């Protein structure tokens, strides 16, 4: 696999959307290519930082109870 092809597939690799065969090909390329590995690290890290940052909002307890009463 060439670096360009690896780059094209990186979003789907990070999102676990490749087929097993495709994922294995990307994985093998990453293990032998430090540049692409760093690129992968960054994309994976960005995804985790976005999730961690946006994940902390939860519905207020009073709102949850209000909804439960409305829906029952």
């Amino acid at each position: 696999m060439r670096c360009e092809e690896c780059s094209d597939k990186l979003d789907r690799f990070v999102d676990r959307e490749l087929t097993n065969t495709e994922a294995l090909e990307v994985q093998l390329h990453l293990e032998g290519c430090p540049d692409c590995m760093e690129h992968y690290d960054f994309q994976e890290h960005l995804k985790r930082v976005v999730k961690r940052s946006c994940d902390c909002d939860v519905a207020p307890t009073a709102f949850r109870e209000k909804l439960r009463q409305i829906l029952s």
Partner: protein
Amino acid sequence: MAEPAAQTAFAEEALTHLDTLYRGALRLTHDPDAAQDLVQEAYLRALRYQHSYQQGTNMKAWLFAIMRNLFWDRFKGSRKEDVSLDDVGEFVLYDKLRDEGARPEADVLDKIAASEVVSAVDKLPPLHREVVLLVDVEGFSYKDAAQTLAVPIGTVMSRLHRARQQLQKSLFDYAVESGIVRPDGMNEGPPRNHGEASDFVGPRQVPQQ
């Protein structure tokens, strides 16, 4: 109308997805009160149309679809904003850091406050923001995101890619403004000792997929 017991069971299952809906509504409306109104309306509509929910399918995606459709109908008008993100280039932040030899690039992300990351997400056009919410925050598959948003999978992929580029640009701008990196992309802070083990705790091993 469903039997009371069935309706209660449906409501209870639906409420297990409340945090996901509330987070999504908050990011879409930018306002806690508007978010609660939107979520409440979505749940009432879901209850009304519960017969159209197919047991065993993805209830979270179904509820989110109801909520985002309401958002576009009630809050933004029925015509969806056809906002396209400018092509900001590939991997803006990553490339800027890398070109200047700032390693490891991912360290910079850890120095950016969560509130700034949320702010960068909030600045995305809504059609791109909702894809990031579904895939990156809530862990939807491309297929589920496509069904929720009623678009082809290819659209999910292209919006996600553009959104991530834009996020990197926003985060790079913030990192420069706040002095985390210099405008030329170099990391601020003490020079790294490249002969010692990195304190970077991100993944070096590629996970088995």
